[in-house]
């Protein structure tokens, strides 16, 4: 559990960031902790920085504790009355309206997913139709087609790319879904065709492979696989950003925050 004295960013100031999904959803204004400290549960360690966007109502500088929980326990956290739950888990987001004491709203886009193609892959990235399909259908989190090109996030991959597999970190469900969709589309033609893979004669041999998170950088450095799905903090781009061959931006994601309403009895 992480405990720190949070430096909150006013959530209302971030409303303009959550514009992709239409509807009444908006970022919660503030949270009313049950105690004198703020307890935040997150289901993805990569979203720990999102806690900075949550502030207690009517107070400044409350001590906050952040706990990373399993996504399958997200609904249990709501049932237990956690102050704030930050998650991308679709089931938890769908479940939140059953608890009227919580206000649900999106946080700013905070992750960019990239497809890294080694220099030997000789592939080309897909178009906007592909990115839209990935954002709307392939992943179960709130996502939008990538608007950043991912410049500066990662270095181009040098390698043969001969292994017919797309590799991802096995604890990253979003990366896994993206890899699976790319593999599913590999043999198809049309505007969804994600890649032109010159060295994969038999696209039915193309498959996904999840590896340990700490092994992914080493695998990327080796460049032996056809492609790698990586998620990087967003935004990372700084202008000007030249085209980076082999770095294909796919989608951007953001978590959802469920915060205790101010009028909820403490």
């Amino acid at each position, binding site marked *: 559990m992480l405990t720190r004295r949070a430096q909150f960013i006013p959530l209302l100031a971030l409303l303009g960031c959550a514009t992709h999904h239409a509807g009444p959803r908006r970022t919660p204004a503030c949270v009313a902790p049950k105690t004198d400290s703020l307890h935040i549960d997150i289901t993805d360690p990569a979203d720990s920085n999102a806690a900075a966007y949550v502030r207690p109502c009517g107070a400044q500088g409350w001590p906050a504790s952040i706990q990373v929980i399993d996504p399958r326990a997200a609904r249990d956290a709501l049932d237990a009355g956690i102050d704030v739950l930050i998650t991308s888990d679709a089931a938890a987001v*769908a479940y939140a309206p059953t608890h009227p004491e919580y206000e649900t709203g999106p946080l700013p886009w905070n992750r960019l997913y990239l497809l890294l193609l080694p220099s030997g892959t000789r592939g080309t990235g897909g178009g906007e139709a592909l990115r839209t399909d990935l954002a*709307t*259908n392939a992943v179960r989190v709130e996502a939008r087609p990538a608007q950043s090109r991912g410049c500066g996030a990662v270095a181009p991959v040098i390698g043969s790319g001969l292994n017919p597999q797309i590799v991802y970190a096995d604890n990253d469900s979003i990366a896994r879904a993206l890899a*699976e*969709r790319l593999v*599913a589309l590999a043999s198809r033609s049309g505007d969804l065709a994600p890649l032109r893979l010159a060295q994969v004669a038999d696209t039915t041999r193309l*498959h996904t*492979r999840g590896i340990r998170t700490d092994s992914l950088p080493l695998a990327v450095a080796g460049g032996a696989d056809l492609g790698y799905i990586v998620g990087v903090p967003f935004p990372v781009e700084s202008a000007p950003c030249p085209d980076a061959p082999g770095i294909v931006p796919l989608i951007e994601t953001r978590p959802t925050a469920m915060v205790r309403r101010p009028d909820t009895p403490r």
Partner: protein
Amino acid sequence: MSFRTRLLLVIAAIALIPLTAIGLLVRREMDRRFAAQDERRIRELSSATRTALAGADTSLARRLASLATALAADDRFRAAVRASAGGSTADRAYMLDYAARAMQLTGLAMLEIVDDSNRVVSSGQFRNDYGRVDTLLPPPGRTALVTARTPTGPLLTLARTDSVRIADHRFTLVGGIAVDQAFLRALSPDSTLRVSLTATDGDVRPVVTRQANDLDVLRASVDHWFATTIGLAAAAVLLVALWLSRRLSAPLAVLADQTAHVDLDRLDVDFTTDRDDEIGALSRLLAAMTRRLRLSAARLRDAERRATVGDLARQVTHDIKNGLAPIRHVVRHLSEVERAAPETLSTVFAERRGTLDASVAYLDELARQYARLTPSLTLRPSDVNAVARDVASSDSSTVTTTLAPDLPPVAADPLVLRRIIENLVANAIDAGGTVNITTRQLPSRDVQVVVADSGHGMTAAQLAQASTDFFTTKTDGTGLGLSIVRRLVADLHGTLHIDTAPGAGTRVSLTIPHA
């Protein structure tokens, strides 16, 4: 081929041929039984597998029917269908995830929901494979082997279909169970048999095969141990056969070697043995035969002697005539001188006296030699030690004795016995070196006399000629010494054995029967 080799081969064949035959028969019988047992197990497993597949097919059909019913009743799925591409993201996600949830609930390894254009709208084993046109659907109502796509690779399934109509759209549910190693192992609890599935004309049939290696490994193992056993048995049999053949043939070889030395003049070969088997009997038979031969030879020599008496008499007559002729001439000359010139008789006598002395000496020597050839023989108890001492005392500086006490008397003529030992000692002294006379009593109570010298010895050729009359290597020898000794020993019914080698001296062993 020698007797030993033949014996060896016969023993080896007797032991190895039945062993090999038994081994081959056992192996063939074992092979036949294993093959029959395998066939039976394959038939039984094939039948059980067909039953299990029928059960799996029934279970699969039931689960798909339940799913079709549930799907038809699912309003949210229906709403997603009606909204089609224009529906909400949540409904679309619900449709995409439907197959995965249903697959988990039903325990299937594969579940796809395809629309009436065979386009995948939801896939349980490959959630993001939506939109693909599935061209490999199993025929309705039948189970088929289907290779389903998954993110990590192809998945072989035993699949069948069911269908449901929702909002004027016909959806086909393709469900399957994984045909993986676990599934096949469950079909075949016998690890030595392997079950695989094959699709022929749309029907899924089990194929049961024996793990070929198992029987082959068993055969190879049996062959290995069979060869090892045969090899060890062959080695053991060969060793035993070699030992037996040597044990059987060695005494025969000794007997053959001893028998090879037997001839009419060499009947002193010793066939004595303590064996009580057939070899011992043969040895005793040969010894008895040799004894009879010795007696026969003695009688033969006696007959020869008698037959040659006439020749000897003629030779004696001739020799005497030769010796008397000069005397007769001298006497006739002296008679003529006495008649014609008596005054010169003494002078002429003196001149002719040398001739007379030479003739007399010749006759005297002739008489001595003939006396040696024809001794008179009277066998009576005689003391060998006494004779040996007397002979040794004649030249005590050269001849020593080693005499056994309490020696029994032998049946011999003391004069003949003395002549034998005298001749042997004389020959030994002539050979040079020292001479020793040894006496001892044999187990048969016969007495053995050994005259050994450290002289120049003899070659084999010299030894072979030594018994021939008038053969000698000495400048002043008569060549009758050893020949006379052999005859005298034979007359005493004894045996004579000579061991000699050039430079190693000579050892003459004389055996005389006890009195």
